[in-house]
């Protein structure tokens, strides 16, 4: 072949290849039925390979579900250990590359609705498709409902309390069975724990990546406050309650030097320190202990949990949240029903899926955590779940008794939460990194910014 002719052929081949490649990219690969006529659904949040036990349990559940429902085929997709890491979640959502049934946080509902990528499942969310639906907590359902329309199915819920390291408590001469109940007691305990030295912080707190604002909000709820006014139009933290939140932290950080040298902590930073046994207490949900062990090399036997501390007595509120699954736009009737059936099996049936405590116990996983509590107290599902949990529990009941026996009113995150949290990060980081920062000045600055943000968001 002559050189010019070869070049022509090569060029044409290249152009054709690129054309075919692009055509292949646009081919729809996720059909709703397979050759055998089975309904196919793709589902995300399959555990990753490193979560060996959880992955094994998921795969076993898929097999069992498919055997019980021969007309349905589940295709599992793993999207990382933190299934709805905000940037990844938003990218998938905006790109329309989510699975048919996709995982998200309660706080993602507005974003999911705005994206136009999800389907309203009001007509399907019922007892016929999810046998335990009537037993699911109305509050949990409400978090996925907007203007009377159901956009998602809740599969987990949490509320915050005081997570603490029993081993460090014992070493510091504190009673690991009676965790601090007030912020003053937290401060005293933090002082004793940090006196152990070796880089151990008595109390750990977030102040970056929007997590500082998140925890400021949780601690403000504990004081009886709220980040925004009831109508959501104005900041409502530049008051005595907000000042107490920051003053408590400032006293521990610079008054007692009991919070460690490293600040500007984000979610993974604090849990890494916790996994290494270098922090005595922090604010978190019960599943923080699971994360510390499964993702940050900690030990279950080190951790326990108390109720959210209050200022002078019991906390007046705590921050709650949850997660669930949404349904992608364009699914067929059969796919939606198949998705609901799967969620009912895997997430909302006592004794199955996430509530298969016997299996979790056999795998050496932690069983007996007080949350999730997805079912209404007194309902048949709640009783059944409770009995199974008690029968298979492998954690010392007293480790979470202080949390479980002192329920605190759960408050949910405000609209525009992430924007507000980003601003409040500024106040939290100032108090935790600058000994000269003024509580009053930081709150005032943050208030002005939040008001500006809310005014713009309303436009």
């Amino acid at each position, binding site marked *: 072949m002559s050189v010019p002719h070869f070049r022509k052929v090569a060029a044409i081949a290249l152009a054709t290849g690129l054309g075919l490649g692009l055509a292949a990219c646009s081919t729809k690969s996720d059909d709703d039925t397979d050759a055998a006529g089975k309904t196919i659904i793709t589902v995300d949040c399959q555990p990753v390979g490193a979560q060996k036990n959880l992955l094994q349990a998921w795969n076993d559940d898929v097999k069992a579900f498919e055997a019980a429902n021969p007309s349905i085929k589940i295709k599992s997709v793993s999207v990382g250990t933190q299934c709805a890491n905000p940037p990844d979640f938003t990218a998938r959502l905006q790109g329309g590359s989510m699975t048919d049934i996709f995982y998200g946080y309660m706080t993602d509902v507005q974003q999911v609705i705005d994206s136009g990528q999800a389907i309203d499942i009001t007509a399907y969310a019922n007892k016929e498709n999810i046998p335990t639906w009537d037993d699911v907590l109305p509050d949990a359902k409400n978090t996925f409902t907007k203007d009377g329309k159901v956009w998602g199915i809740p599969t987990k819920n949490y509320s915050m309390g005081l997570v603490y390291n029993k081993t460090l408590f014992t070493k510091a001469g504190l009673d690991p069975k009676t965790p601090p109940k007030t912020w003053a007691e937290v401060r005293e305990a933090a002082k004793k724990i940090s006196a152990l030295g070796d880089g151990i912080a008595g109390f750990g707190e977030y102040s970056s*990546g929007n997590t500082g604002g998140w925890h400021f909000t949780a601690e403000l709820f504990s004081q009886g406050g709220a980040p925004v006014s009831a109508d959501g139009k104005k900041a409502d933290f530049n008051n005595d309650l907000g000042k107490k939140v920051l003053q408590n932290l400032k006293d521990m950080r610079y008054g007692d030097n009991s919070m460690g040298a490293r600040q500007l902590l984000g979610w993974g930073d604090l849990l890494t320190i916790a996994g290494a046994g270098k922090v005595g207490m922090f604010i978190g949900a019960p599943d923080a202990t699971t994360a510390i062990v499964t993702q940050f090399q900690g030990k279950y036997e080190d951790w326990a949990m108390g109720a959210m501390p209050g200022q002078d007595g019991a906390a007046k509120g705590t921050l709650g949240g949850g997660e669930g699954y949404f349904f992608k736009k364009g699914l067929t009737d059969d796919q939606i029903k198949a998705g609901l059936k799967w969620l009912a099996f895997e997430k909302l049936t006592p004794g199955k899926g996430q509530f298969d405590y016997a299996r979790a116990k056999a795998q050496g996983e932690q069983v007996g955590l007080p949350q999730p509590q997805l079912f209404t107290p007194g309902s048949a599902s709640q009783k059944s779940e409770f009995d199974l949990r008690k029968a298979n529990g492998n954690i010392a009941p007293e480790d979470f008794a202080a949390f479980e026996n002192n329920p605190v009113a759960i408050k949910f995150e405000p609209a525009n939460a992430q924007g507000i949290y980003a*601003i409040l990060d500024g106040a939290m980081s100032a108090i935790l990194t*600058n000994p000269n920062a003024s509580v009053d000045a930081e709150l005032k600055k943050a208030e002005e910014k939040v008001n500006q943000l809310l005014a713009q968001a309303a436009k």
Partner: protein
Amino acid sequence: MAIATVPGAGIDVGSQAPVPVDPRRARRNRRIKDNLTGYAFLIGAVICFAFFSWYPMIRGVVMSFQRTRAGETTWVGWANYERIINDPSFWTAWQNTLYFTVLALVAGYAIPFFLAVLLNEFRHAKGYLRILIYLPVMLPPASALFLFKYLAYDPSDAGLFNSILKGLGLPTSQWMQSTDMTMPAMVLASTWMNMGGAVLIYLASLQNIPGELYEAAELDGAGLWRRITNVTIPQTRLILSLMAMLQVVATMQLFIEPLILANGAGSEDSATSVVYLIYQHGFFQNDLNGAAALGVIMLVALIGFSAVYARLNAQQD
């Protein structure tokens, strides 16, 4: 054969008379035919640019004038721009970004140049030194920054830099936890990570300077400093000027340094950059349209800077 007549023209268009060929058109056709192979090879690059550069840019501009709510996209004029300009962190982000750019221009521009000059003077171990200087570029930026975050910038006395400072009897620093140190610390890490490429480019340019010029300067009694200012800098002016522009455009897009070293905004917003603000709006605040508007503002600012810079340079030439 049916004969048609164009009304009013009186010309028989159905005849077999030869149609006159437009010579320009013929030339163009021939040129296209001759270059067909070239065009076919170009398709790949054009498709890549079109899909991955031009389309996203155009889409970004379009999105910056739209708002998507409840799956409905509407045109909103300048509303996104108004909202983003009124964002509480908008001006802080620009101030921080410009501060970083100025600092990075001083450090990231001068240090590699002088390192290249020094390297050029060495007679031995040049190759090894070049590898040593280029090595950090081969490290993934995230890994390099984590090294700085957890080893060098640890604010306790156990941190690498603080141990050195303490060993020298100097006061230690809070590094990323100090609003005053945030930017210098980010510039230091960024310069260390990125200067290898610049050093090699400067070195290549230095090696193109004819040796006679230095010999003449030495005969005239010029020392090292005079040789640099009177020979090296004038002879490398073109490359220095290009690198300055590239440096400004790259540093204005500051993102990974605040994201990793400061977990985003840093202490009291001292690390918030324009691109980090875009990321916050796009991926955390359910405001892709606001993020697109800020992206367009950044694009216009950089195009404006590049145009003015190129014009000033052309005038100098």
